[in-house]
């Protein structure tokens, strides 16, 4: 039976079908709960049978995720989920493979695998839960912690400059780069759907609150009172306008840098940049914008996925040489007979 036939024949799935029988063990109030809820909400709407989903994670609080999804799942080792997932996706392109990782898992110990999966454009949906801290090991600073971060391992403040996950993904020419926030339920759902539909790697940085070891790091972006002024919503084809009164916007200044302007104050709507997901240089600039903080799809572009390219090579080899004949291979080269 083809995948499509399975999809149409299968009974309609609901959120519950994606909830496993395991008790969720995150701290009460952890941002991971909301992310889990959004993923479980979106999965049944995607039209793919449940058994075709696989969640692969590394190690960290965030990486417990697969246990709570009633799909196939693999909780691997620290930092290596993209590598495990790559092997699975190459050999099983029929599966929808999701990677769940943390800022430590994905950008510290596993940074190498993350960037290589993205540059190869392996068809993985990579969710990086960024709480700017090591949660599972009880609160050391992470590669995304802000400079000067005071933690148990940095009592006088950290002295290393942090990674910007979006800029990292842009830097390796990832084909789908987005950011969302744990508590922005609707926004996160939309981004997850977009990621699912994207051919190739989809990278989503999800700003996540660790209420135990780094409470409130993203508050200004999620607090109803402030977020209108701190968050810039990226929407393809729409002007980059934000602010409680939608009176602020982003323009390209005469110095070729992004500039925040107030509308009416010498700037009109025509001066405001219109977001274009396919415009890579714009995405680079937005990646480095901090005030306001952009959320949404920075960049989306089509490029042949790695597993498709490899599948094509295998198929071409079969066309050219015929299906492999093991005996013929055994007998390749110079042979001789001993009577």
């Amino acid at each position, binding site marked *: 039976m083809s995948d499509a036939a399975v999809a149409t024949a299968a009974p309609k799935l609901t959120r519950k079908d994606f909830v496993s029988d395991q008790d969720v063990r995150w701290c009460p109030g952890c941002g991971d709960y909301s992310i889990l809820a959004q993923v479980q909400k979106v999965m049944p709407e995607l039209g793919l049978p449940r058994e075709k989903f696989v969640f692969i994670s590394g190690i960290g609080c965030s990486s417990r995720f697969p246990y709570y999804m009633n799909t196939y*799942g693999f909780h691997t080792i620290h930092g290596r989920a993209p590598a*495990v997932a790559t092997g*699975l996706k190459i050999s099983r392109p029929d599966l929808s493979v999701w990677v769940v990782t943390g800022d430590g898992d994905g950008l510290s110990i596993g940074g190498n*695998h993350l960037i*290589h999966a993205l540059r190869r454009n392996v068809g993985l949906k990579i969710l990086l839960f960024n709480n700017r801290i090591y949660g599972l090991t009880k609160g050391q600073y992470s590669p995304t912690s802000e400079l000067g971060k005071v933690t148990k391992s940095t009592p006088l403040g950290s002295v290393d400059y942090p990674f910007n996950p979006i800029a990292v993904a842009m830097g390796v020419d990832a084909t789908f780069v987005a950011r969302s926030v744990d508590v922005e339920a609707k926004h996160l759902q939309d981004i997850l759907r977009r990621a699912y539909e994207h051919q190739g790697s989809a990278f989503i940085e999800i700003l996540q609150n660790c209420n135990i070891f780094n409470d409130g790091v993203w508050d200004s972006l999620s607090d109803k009172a402030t977020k209108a002024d701190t968050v810039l919503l990226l929407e393809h084809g729409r002007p980059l306008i934000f602010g409680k009164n939608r009176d602020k916007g982003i323009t390209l200044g005469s110095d070729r840098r992004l500039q925040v302007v107030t509308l009416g104050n010498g700037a009109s709507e025509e001066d405001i940049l219109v977001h274009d997901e396919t415009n890579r240089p714009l995405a680079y600039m937005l990646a480095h914008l901090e005030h306001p903080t952009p959320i949404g799809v920075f960049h989306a572009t089509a490029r042949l996925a790695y597993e498709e390219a490899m599948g094509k090579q*295998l198929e071409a080899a079969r066309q050219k*040489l015929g299906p492999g004949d093991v005996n013929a291979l055994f007998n390749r080269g110079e042979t001789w007979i001993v009577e």
Partner: protein
Amino acid sequence: MEPMTVETQTVGTAPTKRREQRESVVIRFAGDSGDGMQLTGMQFTTESALAGNDIGTLPDFPAEIRAPAGTLAGVSGFQLNFSSLEVYTPGDNPDVLVAMNPAALKVNIGDLMPGGILLADQDGFDAGNLKKAGYATNPLEDGSLAKYQIIVVDMTGMTLKALEDLKLSNKVASRCKNFFALGLCSWVYSRPIEPTLNWIQDKFKKTPELVEANSLVLKTGYHFGETTELFAVQYEVKPARIAPGKYRNVTGNTALALGLLAAANKAGLPLFLGSYPITPATDILHELAQYKNFGVYTFQAEDEIAGVCSALGASFGGGIGVTTSSGPGIALKQEAINLAVMVELPLVICNIQRGGPSTGLPTKTEQADLYQAIFGRNSDSSLPVLAAATPGDCFNMAYEAVRIAIKYMTPVILLSDGYLANGAEPWLIPKFENLPPIPVQFRTEAEGFFPYLRDPETLARPWVKPGTPGLEHRIGGIEKEDVTGNISYSPANHELMTRARARKVAAVAQDIPPTTIRGDQAGDLVVVGWGSTYGSISAGVDEVRARGKTVSQVHLRYLNPLPPDLGGILRRFKTILVPEMNMGQLLTILRATYLVDAVGMNKIQGQPFKVSEIAAKILRLLEG
């Protein structure tokens, strides 16, 4: 003996030549890395195999890819032992050394048998090259090599002369000189040159001028042998008596790749290789990368960790995941191998061992990763460990590694080494239909499914392909509850699962064939080896037995678990000798496992044992 130098033009009428029989001959071709010595050696090997001899070969590459020409570091060698008797090794000391320059002479002359033939290229021994090799005077002329038969031939000069009409540049033309050496040696040992002529046709088909040039030079070298007075004798090595059938030459790495492919095909599973280049394992990646029409996936990962992880991901998906590396890479993979131990998925890890800790001796051989394979992971982490004994045996053991991995749902480590990887031997070509079956059962039945419900006989857990409806489940590295596979930190469960994992690996012993004892079943001395020492030990044992002494030999291919009959066998001998190219790793394991007073024999020089070394040690022990 006075060195004999031959002028190009002295080729006169062909003198009548004597023909002499030889039982076996060991020849070593040595020159600069750019001189094509590997190719020359390989072609001479093919000619010898086609002449019906049994053969053993050993290439010896420089560690640097492009060491400066003419220097000691740039010397590349290839040794071949061809015989009318059974061959176990590439031979200890060559009877013939072909030296294309002074550096090659300096590096290799110490190995040449006293009275052996030294065939040198006159042109290569110019002042510049002599200086680079650190010779104050020309050793071919200063009498320092009097104990050898020195034959100096102006190979380069005659090569250039033969190619005069072809209008090739001097540089291109002189690079054909290795074919002169090959042609000449082919004549001296009565090898047919037709196979090499055919090979040249094929190899250089895109550059017809090189087909012509190399063929011409090969024939020139051959005819020179016929006509020159330098060689009064032409030697003949009769065909060996070997098991009938169809043969080809294989290196260990090729055989290993073929074994993996054959097993995956037998099992009906896609083969996935995740690998990162490292000497001497890389050729397996190269080889498997050519099998794309078989549906083989080869993934050159960003590092060794990703290599093994991607392979494990493919196994999770229902393929047979394989990773290939050498010691330093295996060190990086161990955490992921332990994940495979916990999630109990099939995985094959091939370690083509090289010498020394860290980067060590990348191009030299050693068998010092046995501890790493058996003990090198955190916690109680048992997995089957196999080792190939000969280049051809790499095929069998790779096949066996896949079979065990699938049957017992476990990672398996297969040990080979640089000596097997690059060494070649004639391989009796198997028929795919006759290889043992590798049954695979993917669970599809949801009723009664538990991820860690074990098969009573093998203790394997069920293998489920993602995509199977109703069997969605999660696996991972955290300790599992027995049967359900849910996360469990229960103390009693951890002990139960640790013991279950160990028992499962121990159960592999039921698949190990009875141990073969070469020689008497009991007695004064048994020599126990593993891995690539098989050749030297066998030949050493045979040599001692030929002198009327009794000594037996056991060679292990299964190192964890050990063969169930091994303890009984060891106790039937008064003395147990364990030769190893390490500080005594199997020795320690045998002593600990069986409480036997085995003695070690250890060589840690990046070089295989010589047959004479093994024989001498056995004789010393027998004499007490």
